[in-house]
């Protein structure tokens, strides 16, 4: 069975189906992260101090628990990856497959850098005994950044597929492949958007 409207616009929506699909998925993701953000706001306004006491030590600011320079670095990495993924799509629009591979590869590399840095951050917390169970601040930090990290990992898997075996479609159906890259890019920008709000609210406030 042939899947309809993979390359042509569906008459009633004016868009190819995957684009509607990804936006509906992203809408559900807004509610997922929105629910967790709401919980964070709820917990924070109810807390007498923030981050408060962790393992018997009192912290007046999240600056004292988390590394702002590392968080800033990772923010820059994710923003850069958002540019490279849209550049990868633009190269396909210009029919330059080699440059697509270059920019998509760069995006995957940047995503891996983000995850490795996050891994070092987590490890630094764990060696000091800072686990999610040690306080509301840490529970919020690990839940939100952990879920975001899983989304980054999911993005890496999809983009690696499009960079590697999935790229064969460029030979047989270049428009559908370009659309797939666009849709993956939309997801990736959403992951960046979530971090744009996570970074200041968790690291800087």
């Amino acid at each position: 069975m042939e899947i309809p409207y993979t390359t042509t616009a569906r008459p009633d929506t004016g868009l190819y189906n995957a684009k509607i699909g990804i936006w509906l998925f992203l809408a559900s993701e807004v509610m997922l992260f929105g629910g967790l953000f709401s919980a964070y706001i709820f917990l924070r306004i109810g807390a007498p101090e923030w981050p408060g006491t962790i393992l018997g030590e009192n912290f007046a600011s999240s600056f004292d628990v988390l590394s702002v320079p590392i968080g800033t670095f990772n923010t820059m990495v994710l923003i850069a990856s958002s540019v490279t993924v849209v550049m990868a799509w633009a190269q396909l629009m210009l029919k330059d497959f080699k440059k697509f591979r270059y920019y998509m590869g760069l995006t995957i590399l940047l995503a891996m850098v983000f995850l490795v840095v996050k891994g070092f951050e987590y490890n630094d917390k764990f060696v000091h005994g800072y686990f999610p169970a040690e306080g509301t601040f840490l529970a919020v930090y690990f839940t939100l950044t952990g879920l975001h990290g899983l989304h980054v990992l999911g993005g890496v898997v999809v983009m690696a597929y499009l960079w590697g075996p999935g790229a064969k479609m460029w030979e047989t159906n270049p428009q559908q492949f370009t659309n797939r890259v666009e849709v993956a890019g939309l997801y990736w920008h959403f992951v960046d958007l979530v971090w744009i709000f996570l970074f200041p609210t968790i690291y800087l406030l």
Partner: protein
Amino acid sequence: MASENMTVEEVHKHIRVYLTVFAALAVLTVVTVGVAYIHMPIIPALIVALIIASIKAGLVAGYFMHLIGEKKIIHGTLLLTFAFFVAMVALFLFAYYDQAQVGV
């Protein structure tokens, strides 16, 4: 955006926009961190942080995600999502302040 119908010139124009937006996002990130080091009280700090984050989010959504010029059905879907998100946050806050008033 009818991306499949873009000409080569249009794509090159878009690429220039992407690079400009990238520079703006980088500058705004530095501003966010710089403002945080001023250590303002929580409410003004929260407002400033959210304003800058919203500008950054607008740039990403508008230009990288091509929301500017996107079909109305996408705008409608996002508007509905935003309304549900606001309702969810409001429910949390109403519940909190209701409990606080009762003194539970």
